[in-house]
């Protein structure tokens, strides 16, 4: 009996602390003074700019970019923090949920459904082809996480078809047959895109460790740009599987 009461009390305290923690997490993110992750509060799709602020999604017509025109404002849900476009939809994330808005009629987002937060997170997923995408999920304390392989044949009903354990996953990008995944201070990992969709055992090509903390990548045909904690780095990826460091810009 004594033990049970202890356990109940302990659980109660933890749950109260946990609720506080969540609030402080979302608040510190909205002030942007926490980590350097790419929390997107606005995104461009074609001739439209979409922004989020508190619970609202705003759409601006920027056909004339120097003269944005606010054309709609919609209440989405409490404490929304991130927005990214994906296959004709806007994915809008809070710490509790991920909302989907159909933007097939640009500038007039239409709510469709809510998908599991565990499938996509607040970071742009990378699309491999018509049916598969990759997305990282980092645990709240920044230690550990996974990369999910997601079936997106039905975008409003995505499902996880593979999961890879990661150390500290952040942003990711794809060029050719290679998926580049940032692993925070654990470096940059390269995966074979085909292998990720089949047997995962041989999917990892290599890990690059420079002592830097990697947050995000922009791979282009020849060059990969990496956002690191201290600035950015460039790599030659003419051979996508063998990046050669070109420059490291810090201070």
């Amino acid at each position: 009996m004594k033990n049970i009461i202890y356990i109940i009390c302990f659980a109660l305290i933890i749950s109260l602390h946990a609720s506080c923690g969540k609030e402080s997490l979302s608040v510190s993110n909205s002030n942007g003074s926490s980590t350097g992750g790419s929390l997107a509060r606005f995104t461009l799709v074609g001739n439209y700019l979409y922004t989020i602020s508190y619970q609202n999604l705003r759409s601006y017509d920027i056909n004339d970019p120097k003269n944005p025109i606010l054309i709609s404002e919609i209440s989405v849900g409490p404490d929304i923090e991130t927005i990214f476009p994906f296959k004709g939809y806007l994915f809008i994330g809070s710490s509790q949920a991920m909302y989907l808005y159909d933007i097939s009629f640009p500038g007039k987002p239409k709510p469709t459904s809510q998908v599991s937060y565990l499938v996509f997170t607040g970071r742009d997923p990378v699309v491999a082809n018509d049916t598969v995408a990759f997305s990282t999920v980092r645990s709240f304390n920044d230690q550990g996480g996974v990369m999910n392989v997601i079936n997106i044949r039905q975008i409003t009903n995505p499902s996880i078809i593979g999961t890879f354990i990661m150390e500290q996953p952040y942003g990711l990008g794809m060029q050719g047959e290679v998926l580049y995944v940032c692993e925070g201070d654990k470096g940059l990992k390269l995966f074979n895109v085909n292998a990720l969709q089949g047997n995962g055992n041989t999917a990892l090509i290599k890990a690059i460790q420079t002592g830097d903390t990697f947050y995000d990548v922009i791979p282009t045909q020849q060059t990969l740009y990496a956002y690191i904690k201290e600035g950015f780095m460039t790599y030659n990826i003419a051979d996508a599987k063998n990046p050669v460091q070109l420059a490291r810009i810090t201070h």
Partner: protein
Amino acid sequence: MKQFLAFFLYISVLSSCNRNIESDLGEVDAYVPTYGSDAMLRKVSFEAVRPIVKAGKIVLYNNLLFQVEQDEGIHVFNVANPANPQRLGFIKSAFCKELAIKDNHLFTNNLDDLVVIDISSLSGTKVVNRLQGQFPEMILQHPNETGIYFECPDPGKGVVTGWTKTRLKNPKCNR
């Protein structure tokens, strides 16, 4: 056992996110806001290169790479030769977090405003439009920490740019 239960419940309530505040606290640890001039902070300008301190998001646009300096502005680099990026300058914009570019127009936030900056000629970079108050959450109304007391911000004194820890008698705000 009942005392134990009462004690744990008491602790639990203390540790929950309580925004109500007792009127007579005495002198306690608390944060006071530091203020900046609203007119100064709402000035966006193109300036000389400066060191990267709190690196943020990167955006590639043609041969230019833009990197957010969190809360301060945007570094601009020429990456035509990616082996030797050249620093071109700095777009100063207080509270900057984000950017996106379309047709030589850069969209970013300046405090809580959405601003559009013409970057077709970097030296002649200028704000061509400003939509006020589009990001109200960018204005700091409380410190990031929780479980603390602070002096409630006074909008009449300007924009809150940071918080300093000190001792205060009966602070009126907490989180």
